[in-house]
């Protein structure tokens, strides 16, 4: 039965390939805890990279002996969230990666569960956004862009990520701040960063909004012009004002952080916060953040809970204005 054995072997090889990622985490530190990381997204995206980078840094700093990463993807994290709340309840050694995108998805999808039902541990990183135009664009400054937007918002098509995502939210906030009704905006959503970028490079749209990292190389090469960034202050090595400096009073970080499941003990919660804090202070984490254009914006425990509540209220308001909530 060579044929059937061959058939089964290739199936086995394929499944081994699928799980090889998990087997690459050898346990070597004695005494350090084993943790579980829950990623409510498919492998490869921002949350998944956050989870896998955490695993890598925590292990090389010998803070944990190993970790197991579980991916449950779909609908901006709202498929994974109920599972984390119900099935992971009380597991003190577990963390879920989440962020601003999930806040938006919960509101837009009218999800039954939300982030008040999980235990906030820490906000880790954020990516500020960039407002860019093609190199040939007549807009030289953010003020030019705003003037055109005020004159006729329908004539200024802006490309970015999916409807209701962080890019769309920032566009809505900018318009609201300068007094342009959000419902008149001409926002062109693209599924992936690459597609939005090619629409800009091909001069199909007037401007683009996305994470700074998506555009940084094109800006360096002179294919795109950076008008402003959504960070709180000027950034080293970036030759552009913040939105606030450009006269638009908006600040936005597409933040990512971690949560423990509901029902964990205070001791477990404190231990988890301590673990994440020592990771965030390590050199290994600093290097990874630099490589990936992540800004460290550490905030833990109750302060983090307060921040999530405020951000949820702000996002809900703007999504209502955009007609998405």
């Amino acid at each position, binding site marked *: 039965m060579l044929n059937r054995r061959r058939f089964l072997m290739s199936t086995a*090889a394929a499944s081994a390939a699928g799980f090889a*990622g998990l087997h690459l985490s050898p346990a070597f530190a004695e005494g350090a805890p084993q943790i579980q990381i829950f990623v409510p997204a498919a492998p490869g995206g921002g949350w998944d990279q956050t989870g*896998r980078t955490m695993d890598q840094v925590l292990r090389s700093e010998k803070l944990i002996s190993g970790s197991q990463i579980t991916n449950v993807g779909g*609908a901006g994290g709202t*498929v994974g969230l109920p599972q984390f709340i119900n099935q992971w309840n009380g597991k003190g050694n577990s963390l879920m990666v989440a962020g601003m995108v999930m806040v938006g998805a919960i509101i837009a999808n009218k999800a039954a569960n939300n982030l008040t039902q999980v235990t906030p541990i820490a906000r880790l990183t954020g990516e500020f956004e960039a407002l860019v135009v093609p190199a040939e664009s007549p807009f030289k400054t953010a003020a030019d862009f705003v003037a055109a937007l005020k004159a006729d918002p329908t004539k200024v098509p802006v490309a970015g990520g999916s409807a209701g995502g962080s890019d769309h939210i920032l566009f809505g906030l900018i318009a609201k701040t300068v007094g342009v009704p959000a419902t008149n905006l001409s926002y062109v959503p693209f599924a992936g960063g690459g597609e939005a970028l090619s629409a800009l490079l*091909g001069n199909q749209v007037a401007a683009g909004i996305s994470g700074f990292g998506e555009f940084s190389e094109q800006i360096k*090469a002179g294919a795109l012009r950076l008008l402003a960034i959504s960070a709180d202050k000027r950034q080293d090595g970036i030759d552009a004002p913040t939105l606030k400096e450009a006269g638009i009073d908006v600040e936005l970080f597409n933040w990512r952080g971690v949560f423990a499941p509901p029902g964990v003990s205070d001791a477990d919660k404190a231990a988890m916060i301590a673990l994440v804090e020592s990771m965030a202070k390590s050199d290994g984490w600093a290097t990874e953040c630099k*490589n990936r254009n992540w800004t460290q914006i550490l905030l833990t425990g109750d302060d983090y809970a307060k921040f999530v509540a405020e951000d949820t209220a702000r996002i809900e308001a703007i999504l209502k204005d955009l007609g998405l909530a």
Partner: protein
Amino acid sequence: METLGHLAHGFSVAFTPVNLLWCLLGTTLGTAIGVLPGLGPALTIALLLPITYQVAPEASFILFAGIYYGAMYGGSTTSILLNTPGESATIVTALEGNKMARSGRGGAALATSAIGSFVAGTIGTMGVAFLAPVVVKFALAFGPAEYFSLMVLAFITVSAVLGSSSVRGLTSLFAGFVIGMIGVDLQTGQPRFTFGMTELLDGVDVIIAAVGLFAVGETLYMASRRYAGKDEIVPLRGSLYMTSAEWGRSWKPWLRGAAIGFPIGAMPAGGAEIPTFLSYAIEKKLSNHKEEFGTVGAIEGVAGPEAANNASAAGVLVPMLTLGLPTSATAAIMLSAFQSYGINPGPLLLTTQGDLVWGLIASLFIANVILVILNLPLIGLWVRLLKIPAPQLYAGILVFATVGTYGISQSPIDLVILYLLGAAGFLMRRFDFPTAPVIIGMILGPLAETQFRRAMTISNGDWSVFYKHPLSLTLLTLAFIGLVGPHIWAYVEHRRRRGPEHVPGDA
């Protein structure tokens, strides 16, 4: 000939024993995951990303490139033998390939797809090496209006798979539109046809639909006819590999497939599916053996689409390596691998990381050679799969389809969808509705809709964008010719044959 020098240097990077070993590992792994529906190259590379912490950049990219190309080879194997496409780019291969396998020409179908993949993959990789800067300019000229017109052209291909009755075929196509619309609408963020189920917000995976309609539907149909009569599978008829007649029928489709696949793959929203549809339609039009399409299986219908999907896989690398644009899930994950090395992929990649890029391109050539060497001898083994008695074979297909589907996102809802569509596939088969248009509708419908709405948003509701852009107008004209041309031709031909004295109304 600066490029040749770079390429020679690339080969010196790729030809070290260690890197050759990574290439071999990658291609083997890629072939295996291509075979399983559900486990695609994007997911596999994502799960292997932690390897970037341990090995040199050249080695890991050679591994990833091997997986990427290997998956394109492997995906066709199950399409042909089991009617279970492993990748969305090999759905079209199942149409003629599986028919060929059932009539005893499975070996030839596998051989033409392996050799065609090699030929087209090599042409495509040469395109990456020599034409990338030119092709990328052309690809960027494609905006939403041009994409929409390309989709219109692709819709013409539906007529090639409609089957005997247009009404039934169009019914299937529209069913595909409806399934394709399930999920969050990208343009407005609103859910459509999800019935409040969170699991449906991301839509129905096209692989699940194809496996459900083709493989599960077929299995149920076979089971229902178990006592009604025999639908015999002929394990092998004639030579294992291609006969000289089959070679003669294959080489032109390979070249045409490569010519269609490479530029469309290089377009940021081109993808690998559309070139396979276009290639299939063209081969059916040009073939001298039209009667074999949909009956015993025509080799042109395998050779063309298989070449097209491999050439498009090479095309995808053009915007990625020249501009740092990730235009497919796999490319996006490969770019994030660049980042874990602290390399920022962008327009300057080729100048700042020449060694890496040319090493990668050279390893693609090597991967292609390894893959064809790896796959040709396997054909003998694969074909023996068809000698398994039908009940066991179909039971195996069912298990395989179920495991593969569960592997996509470990969601039980996906299994429910698989079996619901399987039941639908059975009924369609029973009442003679073609299933291929459903899949084409699922892929093309949402793409066309999205591009159309994007074009209209950008133009602020002005329809003229579709005919004022020269590229868009050209594509629409081609589509129009494709639609009415054959009828006019047939009419002219008819008139000429009957001579002037037989004009209508004269007799």
